[in-house]
């Protein structure tokens, strides 16, 4: 038999065909599912970051998008299994106790809806990475909860179910949810993609017992200078840093949400205007300069801010111990941080700790920050939009909302929870709720995550004394422009 000699060229040609076939197989498999990004190293889990409030308000000019109207409504008499994603332990534990009650409530209405609770990574930045990837791949849970600062971003990406027709058909929405919060969750296209899970009031918490002992006034400071002067006096008396505005990269998004924004709102400069981020303004320079002044006066606890979990040595150690005398905080601080079951309980909490409103740069009025805290939202790709809405509606009502508010330490976003236990037994939360209507807030437009990054790095430069306030403001402007694109930013003189 004639042996057909296979040359090297013929062999390589055949090999190339084989490779091409395998590449085509890969192409078909990639096109079959959601396209996922591949150009990155593997991610991993980091230590938990407890910063539950990421609050913001008001309609953000979101990009137009195709409304994700529920066209695949499943009949609720059919068995429906929803997935619900949550990631912070107290919230997960609460949902574990609430979800069976929801399922029973649905059964009593003749609806066979069950819920599978999925636990996400504990740290916020890891959670948001996972959530965004899940949304992008179309594999996100039917219902999830996240900080309000992400709503505009997710909505403009087409990830969230349009809830407008649902909320409009819900009597409680206009009858009981605070108008300010309803406006905050309404996007610039007039639609609602998420509803408030809770409301947050943020202000300054101070150790009134120790300030009184040191003969330092405990009346409301009107200006930054007045606050700084008092805390400088306190630091001289104790030898320890006395004032905390979160700063630096270690605090993650908390640097923006729990520190920076409360100074920025006290200036006369806007941070976002006419659809663009204001990346250079007198207000921004003043804020970074104030951080510089806090560092130079020795009142800011710099070393803890440079280490992982900076809230532990500051809010959970120094403040209860009485070394740190004033810090930003929110309604959650009364329970989550220093309550009897909190991370760092303070005995006689309400005798030792009181609150100030945030002073302003020029002393022309003080304010609390009040806004939507976390929200409930449904995935635009959920197969059961009606059932998802039933779950969201139930979690945002009655006892479920009352328990959520108390567990997290948040104010209720609706006015009919004050008489429902256990919320009714928390007068400080009810008092906070009453401040909502007169509070200041900030809209979290698309691009907030990039601004948060730039703020973290600029404040890091200040607290490490790598840059002064003006230089940090320059760095912020440059980096924000690079991250957002020059067409999305503007400056003010």
């Amino acid at each position, binding site marked *: 038999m004639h*042996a*057909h*000699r*296979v040359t090297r060229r*013929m*062999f390589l040609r*055949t*090999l190339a065909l*084989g*490779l091409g076939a*395998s*590449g085509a*197989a*890969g*192409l078909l*498999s*990639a096109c079959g599912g959601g396209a996922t*990004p*591949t*150009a*990155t*190293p*593997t*991610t*991993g*889990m*980091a*230590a938990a970051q407890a910063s539950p409030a990421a609050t913001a308000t008001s309609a953000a000019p979101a*990009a137009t*998008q*195709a409304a994700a109207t529920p066209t695949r409504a499943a009949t609720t008499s059919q068995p429906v299994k929803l997935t619900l994603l949550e990631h912070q332990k107290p919230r997960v534990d609460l949902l574990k106790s609430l979800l069976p009650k929801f399922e029973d409530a649905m059964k009593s209405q003749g609806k066979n809806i069950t819920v599978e609770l999925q636990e996400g990574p504990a740290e916020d*930045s890891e959670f948001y*990475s996972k959530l*965004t*990837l899940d*949304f*992008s791949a179309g594999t996100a849970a039917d219902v999830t909860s996240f900080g309000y600062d992400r709503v505009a*971003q*997710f909505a*403009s*990406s*087409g*990830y969230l179910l349009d809830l407008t027709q649902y909320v409009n058909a819900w009597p409680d929405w206009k009858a009981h949810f605070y108008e300010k919060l309803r406006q905050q969750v309404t996007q610039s296209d007039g639609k609602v993609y998420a509803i408030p899970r809770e409301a947050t009031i943020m202000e300054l918490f101070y150790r009134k017992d120790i300030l009184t002992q040191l003969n330092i006034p405990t009346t409301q400071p009107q200006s930054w200078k007045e606050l700084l002067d008092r805390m400088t006096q306190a630091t001289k008396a104790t030898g320890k840093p006395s004032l905390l505005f979160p700063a630096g*990269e270690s605090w993650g998004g908390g640097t923006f949400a729990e520190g920076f924004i409360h100074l920025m709102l006290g200036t006369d400069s806007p941070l976002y205007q006419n659809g663009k981020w204001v990346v250079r303004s007198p207000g921004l320079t003043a804020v970074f300069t104030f951080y510089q002044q806090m560092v130079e006066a020795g009142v800011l606890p710099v*070393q803890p801010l*440079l*280490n*992982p979990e900076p809230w532990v*040595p500051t809010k959970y150690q120094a403040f209860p111990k009485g070394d740190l005398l004033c810090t930003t905080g929110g309604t959650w601080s009364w329970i989550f941080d220093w309550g009897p079951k909190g991370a760092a309980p303070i005995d006689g909490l309400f005798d030792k700790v009181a609150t100030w409103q945030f002073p302003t740069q020029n002393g022309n009025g003080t304010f609390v920050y009040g806004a939507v805290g976390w929200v409930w939202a449904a995935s635009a790709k959920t197969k059961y939009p009606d059932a998802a809405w039933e779950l969201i509606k139930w979690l945002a009502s009655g006892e479920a909302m009352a328990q959520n508010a108390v567990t997290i330490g948040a104010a209720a976003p609706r006015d009919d929870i004050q008489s429902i236990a256990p919320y009714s037994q928390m007068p400080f939360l009810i008092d906070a709720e009453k401040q909502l209507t007169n509070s200041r807030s900030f809209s979290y437009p*698309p*691009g907030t*995550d*990039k601004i948060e990054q730039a703020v973290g*790095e600029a404040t*890091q*430069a200040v607290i*490490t004394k*790598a840059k002064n306030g003006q230089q940090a403001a320059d760095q912020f402007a440059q980096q924000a422009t*690079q*991250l957002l694109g020059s067409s999305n930013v503007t400056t003010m003189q």
Partner: protein
Amino acid sequence: MQPVRTWRDAVFVIAFLFPALALLGLFIVWPAIWAFAQSLTNRSLTGPAALHPQFVGLENYRRLLQDSEFHASLGKSVLFVLLSAIIGQTVAGFFIAYLMARRPGWQLRFTPVFAAIFVLPLAAPETVAALAWASLTTGTPEGLLNRALSLVGAGPVQWLQQYAFPVIIVVNIWRGITFAMVFFAAAIESLPTSALEAAMIDGATAGQRLFRIVIPMLRPQILIFLMLTTITTFGIFGLVYFLTRGGPQNATEIIGIYVYKRAFQYFDIGLGSAASAVLLCLLLILGLYYVRLMKEQV
């Protein structure tokens, strides 16, 4: 080597190679092609570009060329590879292996004990190792290193703030020295002892035997190891991310962390893919250079 003579032989060979080729194609080749395609778009995971990504050509590469942070991260990566992989792992690993290897006129006692100690770093997963080092180098007085310093009246030192880059170099050397040691130990023990014995008889010193005989004979193995460790060290992510997250002030933002931040924190897939593509090209060039060096010997 027997040539492939018939079509049947060719099919046979391809059939054996196909599973490996398929896996390579699916998990290496295809993702690289897809990443390059993404790098030519403005694709993002959030915002309008998530809904409607557009072709932007080489815009992402232009942004990279103008991004000082990208240049800085490349520079830091090169320095990281040079110090931790090439000098640290290769040189230190080679000398440890040389000391532990049985050679004519030399046998170290208790080598199994030393071997067990040096293999320990490989026993811990990368994330666990990074978190353990993070705890050890924490800047508070309770950190293990600072406690040791306090015994001599020094510290505490903010290791991950003031010395972040040296710390990640030390950690990477610690992590990679085991593989280097095992690799070179096997290579050294495979050397023909006759050459070393002859050198000893001729009166060659220990240094002369090492530099004139052992190292030249191990040149192919050394080059292979250098190629492997250079490429893997350029791609390191987890070890540095869980120690420093690329900080402080981007001091340890090597290229892997730069790519991760752009793609998964800023959600700019286009830019992250472009950075990955640039890294891939650099590594291909490096790999080809090492292969050429190995061929030169032949």
